[in-house]
């Protein structure tokens, strides 16, 4: 079974986790002055990375906390997991807008 390192609980089986989409998406400021295109990009447009991808996961059936993970999308290998407040261990490839 795929084991995922939860930053709070340690190594746990994958069925306890839920995928939460791409990580490090900041709401553009000032949001009142955004164009429709900028809103679209913020709300809907996501990377479709081949390789290391920074993404959110939630340990739903465990501590319940969100955390970030760096996962290789071609091998499903977790390169690292880290807390939301922490910067990614290394810049995720191709994540720049």
């Amino acid at each position, binding site marked *: *079974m795929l084991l995922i390192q939860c930053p*709070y*609980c*340690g190594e*746990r*089986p*994958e*069925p*306890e986790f839920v995928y939460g989409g791409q990580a490090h998406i900041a709401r553009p400021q000032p949001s009142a002055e955004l164009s429709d295109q900028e809103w679209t990009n913020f709300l809907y447009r996501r990377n479709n990375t081949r390789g290391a991808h920074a993404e959110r996961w939630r340990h739903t*059936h*465990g*501590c*319940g*906390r969100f955390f970030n993970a760096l996962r290789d999308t071609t091998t499903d290998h977790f390169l690292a997991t880290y807390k939301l407040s922490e910067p990614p261990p290394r810049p995720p490839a191709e994540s720049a807008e």
Partner: protein
Amino acid sequence: MRDLTQARRGPLLKPGALVKTLPPATRFILRGGPAVRAAAEQALALEVPASPCRAALDGERAALWLGPDEWLLLASEGSAASRAPALSAALQALPHSLVDISHRQIALAVEGPAAETLLAAGCPLDLDARAFPIGMCTRTVLGKAEIVLWRTGTEAFRIEVWRSFAGYLCAFLAEAAHGIG
């Protein structure tokens, strides 16, 4: 409560594993930061674990770590009711959440030399005593239901499960027990 009919049908007894419903208990979910944890510890005169996935037991009362800011407080019914106002008062000045969930879930005990094997039928965790020692507790899954699993002894586990899942869980364990009988 129709969903509890099966859970109340009586203990499931197999050579090696006994599953029984435990008597009603008082349960609280406490959420808050380190200051809340310290204040609760003082008000309850009970250790509230700071280390992940650990439970502290003191007689009939227990505090289980569920998350970095979440604890499950257990006590036998009645004994803890008088302490809740004291705890609430002690936490008044701190941002926190203290919710009575006594009737949301019920407790099952799984005991016997085959307890680990029985639970492994539906729980993806490594339940070996080296990986899941006495005093370890965690939210996890058993079959399709979410549970809180707590190892209370070498061959004893306590399961806290939402009431509406109890019937399913007992049926699941009865089915799994065929394999070890």
